[in-house]
């Protein structure tokens, strides 16, 4: 378990370093879930928990500087706990709480720690020391291990027994309730994404998506294809309006 917890912690640290540099999106639960599942020896559980957590936070997009609920820490720990206990409901429910903890860690990091690093780097400007600026970014990245890697290790290494103990006592109805709550959770993300769209006159496209899914029964791939078609058509109409200029 020591090695496994260490590997999960290393992956979480990498996830944050990726998010803070390349942004290949290995951060997201859809990748982190299966990777942690593989480490813990239950790939299918990893796929399931990863995809479920990803869907919960699918559209939870935060604009500007606001820190989003953290999907990496939550997906990594939730997947590991699900693999240890063999029970996905409790693990997935804990993902929400874990996401808030990760979010809090990030807020502390950006508000205090990185501000201190900034001032340290800037002190080197007088000497024209560009290497100090580079060192500042590397230090900030290295601290990701402390902020996210260490908590992940502790949660996976010590949390397994606790979760097993809780699961054996937890009533069936509460488990079902957690599952039902989790099923509704993605609505918050979609609601958030809706509020970020400024051009409310485009709302009929919302109806197009709804009709495609609810009446025609299309799946996610079909809906995505319709979205692409609508975008091209809309672009064509915008072009027409532009070409006609004032005549419209």
């Amino acid at each position, binding site marked *: 378990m020591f090695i496994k917890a260490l590997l999960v912690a290393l992956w979480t640290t990498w996830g944050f370093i990726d998010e803070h540099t390349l942004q290949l999106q290995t951060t997201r639960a859809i990748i982190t879930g299966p990777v942690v599942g593989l480490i813990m020896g239950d790939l299918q559980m990893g796929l399931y928990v990863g995809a479920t957590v990803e869907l919960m936070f699918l*559209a939870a997009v935060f604009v500007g500087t606001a820190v989003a609920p953290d999907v990496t820490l939550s997906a990594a720990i939730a997947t590991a706990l699900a693999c240890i206990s063999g029970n996905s409901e409790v693990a997935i429910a804990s993902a929400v709480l874990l996401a808030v903890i990760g979010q809090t860690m990030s807020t502390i990091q950006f508000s205090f720690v990185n501000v201190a690093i900034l001032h340290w780097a800037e002190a080197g400007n007088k000497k024209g020391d560009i290497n100090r600026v580079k060192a500042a970014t590397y230090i900030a990245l290295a601290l990701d291990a402390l902020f996210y890697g260490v908590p992940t290790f502790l949660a996976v290494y010590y949390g397994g027994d606790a979760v097993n103990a809780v699961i054996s006592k937890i009533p069936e109805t509460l488990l079902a309730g957690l*599952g039902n709550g989790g099923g509704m959770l993605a609505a918050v993300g979609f609601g958030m994404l*809706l509020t970020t769209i400024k051009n409310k006159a485009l709302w009929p496209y919302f109806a197009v998506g709804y009709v495609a899914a609810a009446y025609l029964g299309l799946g996610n791939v079909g809906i995505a294809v319709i979205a692409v078609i609508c975008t091209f058509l809309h672009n064509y109409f915008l072009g027409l309006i532009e070409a006609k200029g004032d005549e419209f």
Partner: protein
Amino acid sequence: MKNTDQRLTRQDLWAIYRNQFFIRSCLNYERFQNVGFTHAMSPIIDKYYETPEEKQEIMDRHMQLFLTQPMVASIPIGVAAALEERLVVDKDIDADAINATKAALMGPLAALGDSLLNGTARPIVAGIACTLALNGSLLGPLLFLVLMAAMTLGVRYFGIFVGYEKGADLVTDMQESGIIGRITELASVAAYVIIGGFACTVVGFHLNLAYTSGDSTIDIIGTINSMLPQFLPVTLTLLCAWLIGKKKVSSILLMAVIMILGIVCTYIGLM
């Protein structure tokens, strides 16, 4: 100063491409991505600047506040590279123009990056990938990884090389052509379709609401669903949007309330 007769080579631009990946590594709430921006400019400092005083001037310049979406930050970095080169080689611009140009780009680009990349492209690909993953296929995560890697690396390549090529003209081009507004509108179209559709396929719950009169029982939700299928998830999504947008309810609080609601409704047999 040195190399004042030399333009940035393709090799220099690739060095900037590699260094721009640190744009948000030291994200801080005082001046946001300023350390990363200065880091991204390091190939230019190494190429043109010699004495500590000269270096301090350019470093102080880029240590000013900078904030945009990290992937599209590559565009102002490319433009700033072109302007820094012009400042040293052609000497026909003022140093203040560089930060003014960066500031003019960061607002519109932040809105564009957030809505197009984080708000549209990623949810679409993730939605498809999750469908595959829930069927037990590794193809889902792999597809997500490949498409997202292509997106982040591609956008950043475009930003550095096209941003450098166009230089300050990019700002006027952007403002006159209205391209940002157009792309944002198109992203909104796609996002609306996706939200309307995915709200039905992803959000899943049922309420046991029945009306009993005498011998006959009417399933209220079933009746509404026969006219407006999936009306529960869509109503909940719209309700959340209203609460977050109009009532300024914190989304985290809303998530907590929904989890509790799920438990309570299950206990009283509503779910």
